[in-house]
């Protein structure tokens, strides 16, 4: 009878290590971010779309992207706030299994060059009353010694006062 009997299970951890090849486009993008602290984008020569990050082909017109630096341009890191959400409950980082401290804010920014980008809005939890669409923001980049070639080399975007 199923009633009172103890139902057992097996606990385990799946831990897998990866070594992803970034490829010449994303690899260059991440490398430039690490060395210079600058984000680069490329304009598709077929349809004029901006590809950020640069990719081997444009998803819409399938035109092949030239290698750096042809057609590539650096971004200023400045833009305006489009949307945001306040993360108010714990998130597990799938890389480490650790819980990230909350609350924190994700922002969607329209960078001045015409590219949408998502990153943290910081440095600390900002009050909802301070936030509105159109606020000017700017990327805050880590020191060169701390940069490793990941998007987290950008610490967060901060609101430019005034």
């Amino acid at each position, binding site marked *: 009878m199923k009633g009172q009997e103890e139902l057992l299970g097996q606990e385990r951890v799946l831990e897998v290590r990866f070594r992803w090849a970034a490829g010449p486009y994303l690899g260059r993008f991440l490398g430039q971010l690490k060395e210079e602290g600058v984000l680069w984008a490329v304009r598709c020569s077929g349809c004029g779309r901006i590809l950020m990050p640069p990719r081997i082909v444009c998803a819409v017109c399938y035109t092949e992207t030239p290698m750096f630096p042809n057609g590539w341009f650096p971004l200023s890191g400045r833009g305006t706030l489009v949307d945001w*959400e306040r993360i108010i409950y714990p998130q597990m980082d799938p890389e480490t299994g650790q819980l990230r401290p909350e609350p924190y804010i994700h922002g969607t920014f329209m960078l001045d060059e015409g590219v949408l980008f998502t990153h943290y809005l910081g440095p600390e939890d900002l009050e909802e009353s301070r936030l509105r669409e159109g606020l000017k923001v700017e990327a805050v980049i880590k020191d060169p010694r701390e940069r490793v070639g990941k998007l987290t080399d950008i610490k967060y975007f901060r609101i430019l006062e005034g």
Partner: protein
Amino acid sequence: MPRSTAIVGVGQTFHRARRPDVNIGELCTESVKAALEDARISIKDVQAFIVGNMELFEGRYVQDMWQADFIGAAGKPGIRVTTGGTTGGTLACVAFEFVASGVFDTVMAVGFEKQSEGDTRAGLKTVSDPLWIRWLTTGAIGYFSRQARYYMRETGAPEAMGSVVRVRLAQHARRNPHAHLRMDLKGVEEAMEAPYLIPPLRQTDMCPASEGACAIVVTSEEVAKRMPRKPVWVKDWITVHKEAMYIRGGRHSVADLEMAASKIFKRNGISKPMEQISVAEIYAPSTWAELEWLEAYGFCQKGQAWRLEEKGFFYLDREFPVNPSGGVVCTNPIGATGLIRVAECALQLRGDAGEHQINRRPTLGFATAWGGSGWTVAVLLSATKQ
């Protein structure tokens, strides 16, 4: 020229948050047996199997191999389908194609998920590219919170609308014995007491993580005509992929939904979807998504869905029934959910949905599945062959 295909049997488990009494295989066995009983056939009659889920949730891969013993597939042909959120819908499409192609006459599609066994949020994050955005993703909840804000901003819908949708779905689910969450929500105020997940999305706006399985039996016209039950005819199906949302850089888009619906409607002569389609079982993981996506599919103009919802238009006994089963917001075993939409549509068209049967005379049904973020599967089912 593809052959006509029909759904002659459906089965599902009684979806729950946790099913410690069965392991992954045994869960599927329940749905397979239910489908065989519904179709009144034996496992020996099934020639091929299509099985699928979203493997990260159980941490066990190659599910076609592990499930074979439990679903009666050992020694028979078949394939595995793992298309994330759309898995259930894709399972149905592949089953249709197996039969429409003429290669098989009777096949079974089985979709399942044993979601309490893994961490749902962590699992969903692995959908995102590790080199670009995985560090940032908050899984489905982040995406749907943003979607809710977007819809409210674009259409002027008040925050209470999410709860209005939830009350409808809860009332539908209470009439569906298979649904997972069958809350007795008395009204919008009660739904709005639920805490926020990520504002403005509340706990009551978002789907649960459910454990469940669903199976359907698909046959050729010839086999269907010999079946004791009334077959449900498969009129058409479509799958659409658009550029992954994470690369679009956060701009909200429903392009995949719009494209899927407009193409499938156009090629089936559907110009007035709310009139010509009798019931919609749409895949919407949140209440706000249900509103926006009804518009994206073309059932109503942009900004109109919430106004119709306010009038109770989408209740199962009203003008255009949407998710009479309670929808994804009440039941979401991810690998099965898309298939449950097809199965529930089929039940409606057969007149067999019991207490959650729609009032309208069911002629055409529309079932969808969606995957985050950027792909849609849509299926059109018909009560008559033509």
